[in-house]
């Protein structure tokens, strides 16, 4: 496992989330250090997305979520968030530049984006292999392209914690490996903590430092090989959790498949 910085971290202790009378999460304990990429896997309805939304502060909870940055406790750190496959209107007249500017600047985009700002957006996008998308409408982007634009937004300005919700859904294999590569670079360069919710076990296992199996509570935790080779877990969660074709020992022969989610 990678050496991570111990001065800053996200600590989730004894977290409980109830929505509409149902307990979605119970007794969840997760610690993430900066510079660490943690993958969260679990069957559908396990509470993965709820966990991210709770960290974002959207969902009421019991328990404790604490952020510590450079030794001091911070109540509201900057959190970058890349949402799951967006369900927006594909004919929407919002360009990539519009979306980025409205997220990173107060300058009202409906008045027209000036050249300086456009150059700034272009240089931000260029770090994510997306500068050629600047004037495209967001509805015209492929899954992978949109994901890179959202990652560019999430990383501007640099957050302490990056949350990625199902980056695999709707993205082809090539796009996904480019995305993971970018996340890996970011973690190395900026020492940020990354929490990544995914179904794509095989694709993600070489990029994450730690894998957490979540089903209302943390069922197992450890390095990806250990979690994925635990036979008991495979038996219990196997059919609902991962597609057999994506299991690590088979991944070389099935690498071309992309049928998750």
């Amino acid at each position, binding site marked *: 496992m990678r050496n991570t910085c111990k001065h800053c971290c996200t600590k989730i202790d004894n977290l409980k989330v109830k929505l509409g009378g149902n307990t979605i999460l119970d007794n969840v304990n997760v610690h993430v250090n900066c510079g660490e990429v943690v993958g969260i896997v679990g069957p559908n309805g396990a509470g993965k997305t709820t966990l991210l939304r709770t960290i*974002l502060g959207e969902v009421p909870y019991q328990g404790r979520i604490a952020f510590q940055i450079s030794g001091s406790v911070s109540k509201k750190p900057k959190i970058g968030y890349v949402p799951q496959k*967006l369900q927006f209107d594909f004919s929407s*007249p*919002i360009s990539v*530049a519009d979306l980025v500017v409205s*997220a990173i600047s107060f300058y009202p985009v409906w008045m027209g984006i000036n050249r300086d700002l456009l150059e700034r957006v272009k240089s931000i996008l260029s770090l994510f292999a997306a500068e050629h998308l600047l004037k495209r409408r967001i509805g015209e982007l492929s899954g992978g392209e949109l994901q890179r634009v959202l990652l560019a937004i999430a990383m501007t300005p640099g957050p302490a914690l990056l949350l990625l919700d199902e980056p695999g859904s709707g993205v082809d294999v090539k796009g996904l490996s480019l995305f993971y590569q970018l996340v890996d670079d970011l973690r190395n360069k900026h020492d940020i903590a990354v929490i990544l919710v995914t179904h794509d076990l095989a694709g993600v296992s070489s990029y994450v430092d730690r894998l957490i199996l979540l089903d209302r509570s943390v069922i197992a935790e450890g390095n990806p090989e250990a979690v994925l080779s635990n036979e008991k877990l495979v038996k219990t969660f196997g059919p609902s959790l991962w597609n057999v074709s994506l299991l690590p020992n088979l991944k070389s022969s099935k690498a071309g498949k992309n049928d998750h989610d």
Partner: protein
Amino acid sequence: MIMINFWYRLVDMFPFAWTHYVFMKNALLAVLLITPCFALLGTMVVNKRMAFFTDVLGHSAFTGIAIGVLLGIQDPTLPMIAVAVALAVAINLLKDTTRASVDTVLGVLFAFIVALGIVILSRQGGFAKYTSYLIGDILAVSPRQIACFLVIAIVVLVYWYAAGNAMILTSVNSSLARSRAVNVFLIETSFTILLALVVMISIRLAGILIINSLLVLPAAASRNFARNIHSYTQGAVIISVFSGVTGLIVSYYWGTASGATIVLFAAGCYGVSALLGRRLNR
């Protein structure tokens, strides 16, 4: 007063028959102030797929007028605004808490508020008095109302300047917006309240039946060829002002209801843009 006299003199310079009438000068000024507001608000109404919501909002005027009548108030504008704002906030709250689809909730409310209003207003067969609210009367606009439109136009412009970006983010994804420190609830609620205000204040112009199309049509037409938010907004404002002015003047010569004539022109713009837009995007 000085401003309105200046306006009258300005219009007098045009060599048309209709410019001799004060009511036409007033109506033109009202149209020039309110159509850009409708265009701006409409861009977000269409982006956020709120067309049905604003239709319900417009129809809530029935209940507002009825409450005004019950309370014995001469000018029902205030009760109309109160009902519309309450309805807007209630729908906004319901949307997040109910399991029924927003469409269904709106459908139920639509029927309820219209029926309630009509039942109260039709007591002793007096409904005919209120038909002017159905089709509106832009030519009856007073200088005081125009001052009101000026204030509203400034409010909309300031709001758009301050909250435009946040609304774009919210319309794409509310979690994404929250992660960018946008207070989504505040944005959505304030937007619906502003909508309620603008629609209720201008319902005398266009009428309950067609007020919603003034919001939806310019934005929908502009969307057919817009490639970004700037061109979308620009297109909607141009189409809205163009249909407003043309519709008003044409209605003078045709002797037709101005609101409906304006809507016909806006619908014409939509038709043209749909045809041209398809060709451009091919």
